[in-house]
């Protein structure tokens, strides 16, 4: 069996991965602690899966496979509670957010050494900017062809995902003016962007094998695409979300992707075509820069409209699918955020305006993550 055989999974199941920041309680800067945290969690036992990441100041939590929004949310909350309890024991804070607002790369080294050196040698300063934290949502697909359809059809909604989840307005101590500065770091990588316009799994495998033969990539992991098929899990993986400030938001975003997937797979409203990507980078930039107030161009109708209006309209379109998936509560949240035009970046800017301290902002962020009001 090759690593590119698509393992079938139940359609429309979902799984959520969140990369989280580990902070010290003193000045709320990133700190080393993933190893010790995981050790405490393993000894006490915990729900879900908790893994180390490339840096010791990042930890990744992931849920099991869920069919429903409410069970996914419950599992995320349980994992969060276990994580927060372990962090308290070690005097650490855990927080969401797409990037740490003031960590300075030249001041501290956080990557574990051998792998950091390898990545750093290849990417130079890009590697140093890459301490960013994202949410990945997996949607189960019964076969590779379905996965390819969904990968392309879902691309229209990428600006929605970016704008709703954006939580990295600050970087290196300044307001970047972007709602999601994290994605700028991702887009600097040569293998970022979108999957090539192939709608059959066989064709995609052929493309991948050519890339591998040319030694452009070694595995699917080397593609940093916004949406990529994951044959090993039998899913497509949406990767553009900044890690939200709360697990509740993370679960609602996943439910939104799931409901969209049901709509796309059952109604097949679009035919996959290269023209779907006409406005792709434009829309993506608008979403990163202006968040929910950005403008997006509908690739089919060429109509311009604010992203939040497009979200409200979409939530209406997919309402029946959300109901079938029992995620109407999540759609209400999504519509609420779009309606008021507020995302986590808005919240962060408001808090910073009040306290004038990015460290204090991170403290508030960690409290919010812990489920405190």
């Amino acid at each position: 069996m090759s690593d590119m055989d698509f393992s079938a999974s139940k359609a429309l199941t979902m799984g959520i991965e969140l990369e989280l920041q580990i902070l010290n309680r003193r000045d709320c800067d990133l700190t080393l602690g993933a190893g010790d945290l995981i050790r405490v969690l393993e000894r006490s036992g915990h729900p879900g899966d908790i893994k180390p990441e490339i840096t010791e100041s990042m930890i990744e939590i992931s849920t099991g496979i869920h069919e429903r929004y409410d069970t996914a949310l419950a599992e995320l909350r349980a994992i969060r509670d276990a994580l927060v309890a372990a962090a308290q024991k070690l005097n650490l804070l855990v927080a969401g957010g797409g990037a740490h607002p003031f960590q300075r790369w030249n001041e501290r080294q956080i990557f574990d050494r051998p792998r950091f050196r390898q990545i750093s040698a290849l990417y130079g300063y890009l590697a140093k900017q890459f301490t960013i934290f994202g949410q990945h949502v997996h949607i189960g697909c019964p076969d590779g062809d379905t996965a390819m359809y969904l990968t392309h059809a879902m691309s229209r909604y990428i600006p929605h995902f970016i704008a709703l989840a954006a939580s990295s307005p600050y970087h290196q101590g300044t307001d970047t003016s972007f709602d999601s500065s994290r994605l700028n770091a991702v887009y600097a990588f040569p293998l970022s962007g979108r999957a090539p316009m192939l709608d059959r799994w066989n064709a995609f495998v052929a493309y991948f094998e050519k890339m591998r033969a040319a030694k452009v990539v070694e595995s699917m992991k080397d593609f940093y695409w916004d949406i990529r098929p994951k044959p090993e899990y039998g899913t497509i993986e949406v990767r553009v979300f900044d890690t939200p400030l709360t697990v509740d938001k993370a679960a609602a975003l996943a439910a939104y992707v799931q409901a969209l997937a049901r709509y796309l797979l059952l109604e097949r409203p679009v035919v996959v075509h290269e023209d779907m990507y006409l406005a792709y980078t434009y829309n993506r930039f608008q979403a990163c820069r202006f968040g929910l107030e950005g403008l997006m161009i509908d690739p089919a109708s060429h109509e311009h409209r604010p992203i939040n209006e497009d979200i409200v309209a979409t939530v209406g379109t997919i309402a029946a699918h959300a109901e079938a998936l029992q995620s109407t509560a999540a759609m209400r949240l999504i519509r609420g955020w779009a309606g008021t035009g507020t995302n986590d970046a808005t919240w962060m800017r408001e808090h910073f305006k009040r306290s004038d301290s990015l460290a204090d902002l991170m403290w508030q962020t960690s409290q919010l993550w812990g489920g405190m009001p």
Partner: protein
Amino acid sequence: MDPLHFLPAWPPASTPLGWVAVLLLAAIVTGESVRRFLRISRVIGYLAVGVLLGPAAGGVIDNGTAGQLRIFVDIAVGMLLFELGQRVDLGWLRRNPSLLAASVLEAALTFMLVYVAMTWFGIRPVTAAAAALLAVATSPAVVMTSIKDLRAQGQVAERLMLFTALNTAYAVIGLALMVGLLDYESHRPLATMILHPLYLVAGSLVLAGVLAMVMLSLLRLFGRRPAFQFSATVSLVLLTVVAATMLKLSVPLALLLLGVFGRLFDHERHFVSLRFGETAMLFIVLLFALAGASLEFTGWSTAVPLALAIIGARLIGKALPILLLSHASGLALRKSSLVSLGLMPMSALSLLMLHELTRRSPALASEVGPPIFLAIAVLAFAGPLAIEFALRRAGEAAEETQ
């Protein structure tokens, strides 16, 4: 009239500031040299310069000069203890009570083992207790300097700071009680013996509490500008030193508490971005150099067995409770053993406490002076190596940028 009156006299008259400049330059150059060429702690270099220029080696700095430079020692110790206190999160003890247990037990066991070892060597109980008290405290200067120097972060570094702050506090409070005991020995009334330590501890608490509130209201009023925070904090640290001295309170305890309260009362997290920078480092370098200069090297030949007993008892006393409570406190055994090792340093503060004790009880100096000085000297030099080893092995030290 001397036609060359405009030329300076030879040799030129020395001033305290002159000594500061000489000592500082020599210490910094030596510190950088040992770091670069021997790849060991800069602290070793600072200390070595002190020893070489100090009275023990017949150097240029005699006790009189060292006395004139005492103000720099006070400032350095003040900032160190304040920063240590500020970095310590008492809430952590509540969230992880095993840490409090480990801290109390390591201090108690260290005290008992050193006390037993000393009495076994035939030292009088009061004197043995005084020496055992000195063994409880880990050097805040070495711990803070090493952690900053290596830009270390992680559980080992955090726990080293926590345990050091606590065992320093225990030792300082113990010293206050000890002073009472020494008063009693010198036939002062029983009331003095009780009231004196009470005054020291309660007075230091009140002073630190009041000044911490003053500091926080200043910060609340004038905001978070780092330069302002730095100056305001340094001024208040100095004020605390002066006030504690004038009121005959415990200066180290007051400073440690100022840091702790400064953080504890800081509900709006005004302090969150405060950092002591390179300016503070200058005082610390001087502190180590002067500590080196005040090490004594007499009567060491007979002191070796007792000094080794002190060091061994101290190592066991600190390591055993921390290792036993390792799992309960949520740390791997390997890292806990590194924490124990990192608690070995003794340095400037121990010397200051020793001077305080011998000043009140000269008999103590003659009875155990040399072994304690030897133990402190060994741990002053070995301690920085031990803690740097511990932080590196724990993977908490950042790569050095040249």
